[in-house]
């Protein structure tokens, strides 16, 4: 599995940019196909063609599972096709973050067991991985999204063990966000808007999280059963 590779430099030499662009093109083609199929659907069910997240705690953990899949895939790609000027310290921290996301993803897959949604199809077309600002901006958006999701689902979870597990992951995502933000602009580890908002971090509900996550994947998920336990 490519994600296991720890040497970003070795990967760059092995995987040509052309091959990556080919991969991206295939994804774009799949998107067009999915789009044309979607246009045939009936109008009365807004969730037709979307995947049910499930209800209660499983549905909420599935959102974490989806965001984590996105992040693991994103960092794997960043390490496969490093942005120009990535230094050794940055490569080390991004490798750490990729490993954390894989660990999280696989743990959630086991915890969810039969209730886990299928693997998603990330869509990173339009992101120029060669550009440092593009790569770090996307990483920042995904990490901030992840933090806001963990903060948003905490009081919806029923199981106390999941409340703790969710918090264990939330603070590591916040550490990631701070690290990525500092790589991008040193000192931007937290947002000025957070200072103004009682020093509180971002929070989003599942619908808000999914609507932002949609930009990075082909899949569409249906959160309408989450409120059922």
């Amino acid at each position: 599995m490519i994600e296991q590779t720890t040497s970003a430099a070795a990967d760059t030499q092995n995987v040509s940019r052309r091959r990556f662009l080919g991969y991206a093109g295939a994804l774009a083609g799949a998107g067009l196909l999915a789009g044309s199929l979607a246009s045939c659907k009936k109008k009365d069910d807004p969730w037709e063609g979307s995947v049910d997240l499930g209800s209660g705690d499983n549905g909420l953990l599935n959102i974490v599972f989806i965001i984590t899949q996105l992040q693991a895939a994103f960092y794997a790609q960043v390490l496969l096709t490093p942005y120009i000027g990535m230094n050794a310290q940055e490569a080390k921290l991004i490798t750490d973050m990729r490993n954390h996301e894989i660990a999280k993803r696989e743990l959630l897959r086991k915890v969810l067991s039969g209730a886990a949604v299928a693997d998603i199809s990330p869509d990173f077309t339009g992101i120029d991985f060669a550009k440092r600002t593009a790569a770090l901006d996307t990483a920042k958006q995904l990490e901030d999204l992840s933090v806001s999701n963990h903060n948003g689902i905490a009081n919806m979870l029923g199981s106390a063990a999941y409340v703790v597990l969710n918090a264990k992951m939330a603070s590591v995502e916040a550490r990631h966000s701070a690290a990525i933000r500092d790589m991008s602009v040193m000192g931007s580890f937290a947002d000025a808007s957070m200072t103004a908002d009682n020093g509180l971090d971002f929070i989003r509900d599942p619908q808000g999280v999914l609507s932002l996550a949609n930009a990075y994947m082909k899949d569409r998920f249906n959160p309408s059963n989450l409120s059922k336990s």
Partner: protein
Amino acid sequence: MNFSSILSEIERIDPEIYERTSPRRTLIKNWTRKASLVALPFAIGSLFNKAYGKTNNAVSDTLQAALIFELLEVSLYGKAIQATKVNPPAAQLIPSTTGMEYQAIEMIWNQEQAHVNFLASILRQMGVTPNLQQNFDLTGGSGSGSGQFAQVLTDYGTFLAVAQMLEDTGVRAYKGQMASLQEDHDILASAMRIHSMEARHAAHIRMMRSQTPGPLADGQDIRPWITLKQSGINSGATQSAYDGEENTSQMNIEVVNIAGFDIPDVSASQAFDEPLDMTAALSVINPFLAP
């Protein structure tokens, strides 16, 4: 009898129930429409637990303890800013008053002050007087002024090491209270949002420390996340803040090399932060409290 009529029955007998469970009234009303039959026993159980089981004292005690952590951090950063502003350049604690290090400490200080104000306002809403009168000994000397970190306001590396330990411990302390706040939806959400801010602070202080060798540097490679139970601080006084962080098993599932992926123990421990219970968290900061 359906759930709606059970609720109206309780409301008739005990008109205060919505106030006692407030601010979850809207949520309760929503449940009566949305909840499946299977969910009802659990929903009713947790509602009663909140209203009649757990007292508000437990929650306000938690918030008072959180307030001590926030006040300690406010004191540390406020004194550090002072020890930078009032001194001539050669004696400034933080390298300069115009650099990004100073701006970062100022931003963290502002956010910790916001946390103090926010926690105090929640306590007042609960009818509890926030305890804002706490004396601190930033050297960790319990009031002697000559603790393990006697140079905390004169040596930049020592200051950052103390800041790192307090931020990391703050993250662990909040995390340790999340399950007990579960029935208080608004407070849990706010605690989570403060908790992840503390993690952002910890990560940035760690970035600053990785670039700042000092007497407390122990040669460890300091990263924004916690590796095993390494403090990265050359002082035995800080180890209890990190004990337990080496855990690599979550929900009774081993994370090292999970599902055949190459995940070493270092990564497995970093990927999840570990909670500290209130007693352990308070014992970490106890040397910093003064009579």
